[in-house]
């Protein structure tokens, strides 16, 4: 059996995914609040954008460090 790495098998991937998934939902601000505005955009919206960026960074991390099925190895031989 080849020494492969698959995201679904890593508990860390699942844990981080669950945390980030929680953060891209706006439950951690009181309903109806909008202050303060930063460049005309409410803080809670900036928080969602930041959490979304974290999700993109998470995808990058998983792709680089948790995904290696050694599929390309065979072609090098």
């Amino acid at each position, binding site marked *: 059996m080849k020494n492969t790495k698959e995201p679904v098998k890593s508990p860390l991937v699942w844990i981080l995914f669950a945390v980030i998934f929680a953060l891209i939902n706006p439950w951690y601000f009181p309903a109806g609040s909008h202050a303060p505005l930063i*460049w005309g955009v409410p803080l809670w919206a900036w928080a969602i954008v930041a959490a979304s960026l974290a999700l993109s960074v998470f995808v990058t991390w998983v792709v680089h460090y948790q995904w290696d099925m050694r599929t390309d190895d065979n072609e090098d031989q």
Partner: protein
Amino acid sequence: MELAFGGAAGITVLVAYGVLMLAVGLITYLRNRHVRESLDEYYLGGRGLGVMVLFFTFFATQYSGNTVVGYPPTAYRLGYQYLVSIPFFILIVAAYLFFAPRLYALGRRFSLLTPVDWMHIRFQSKAVTILAATLMLYALGNYLLEQFVAIGQGVSGLTGGTIPYQVGVVFFIVIMVAYSWLGGMRSVAYTDTIQGIALLFGVFMLLIGSLLYLGTPATSAEVMLAQMPDKIGVPDAAGRANWLSLLLLVGIGAAVYPHAIQRIFAAKSEATLKRSFVRMAYMPFVTAGVVFVVGIIGISAFPDLSTAESEQLVGRIANALANQNAVFYWAMVLLFGGVIAAIVSTADSVLLTFSSIVSNDLYGRFISPEAAEHRKVLIGKLVGLVAVVVLVIIAWYPPSTLYQIFVLKFELLIQTAPALILGLYWTRLNSRALFAGMLVGAVFAAVMTFTGLRPLGVFSGLWGLMLNLAICVGGSLAMGVSEQERRRAVEVIGSY
């Protein structure tokens, strides 16, 4: 909508665009003359798509003309509640990480061509293969129909009716079929690249113009705070539930678009696929994010639009910008060309996948397995053409006449997810339970859609999927799998 640039300029851009697409098809054909001799070459571009082209062809399947024309009006009506559209698109890419690595590896090992091909290798069940192929063909057909109607409406809207709806539909479909036939997946992917660049350029000009001439998020914030604070405040309980269910639906649903899955198989290497995914993960900020801001700016620039009027928000903004100066005039003409291009690029991918399922999974598997590959390709193309002709006849008169049966897409596709995903990881999945779940789930979801039932506000496709999963998992646990089935499963997926 009345456009300052309707008529001649619109026609010029559309014709130029059509000629460019045909040229791409012709060049691809001349450079790869053997393309129609093999299924791999025609449907997967010889499994050789590089990072850039693979990225743009994923981009074109994920973002259609609707992202540009339909999303700003929604942001206009919902305000910041629609910010969910940004994490929504990133989540689609994230969801792929949970199955694409293994599916790509299996695709290489078994030379998989379509998602149905995978199910056949995994379950070796004629019933599962035929049912999944049927559900996918039906749903893909309806996707095509939707795109055709959008092309016609887009073209007649852009040219202010100078090009009638039907002429627009026929013109672009003939071009689309021609370049697809000439170069297969390669043509489709190369044109996707051009279409993607046109769309990105147009969307950015739309944002820059809106910021220069129409207002900023700050001016819209003042309007919202004064008149409609719920559009800028944190969503309430119902808004949050809606937000969550949209994200959950995407998480499950991302897996089921056959034309997106097929692109996994077309990647040149694992490294190529990985790099394309990383790029896709950041695109939502410059696509969904940008059109979201445009919609928000619209709140102060065009206040008090009714729902129907707001649907034409992008047309109004484009019109306002086109009247400013020549740069924005041409940028907006290109934007609308890009919108049509994006719809065509979604349609061409769907058509190619439709044909591949016919070629490989129905004709090539059950009707004439001994046929030469070029014959299988030819049959796929011809059946695809017949489907296109039938759909054009249905699309001939715009969509108020479309019945519910032409609306069913996602509801049916999602029922194939257990076979696709569970099959990747669970060796004890029983193929008869899987078949029963898929069939019952599809029928249930269809009936609920026809009757308009949505208990608890949950989408009919999800109800179908829950029933489907209960039957498939419950049945597998109750019946178990035969020793032979299990050995086969271990052989296919056991080495990962």
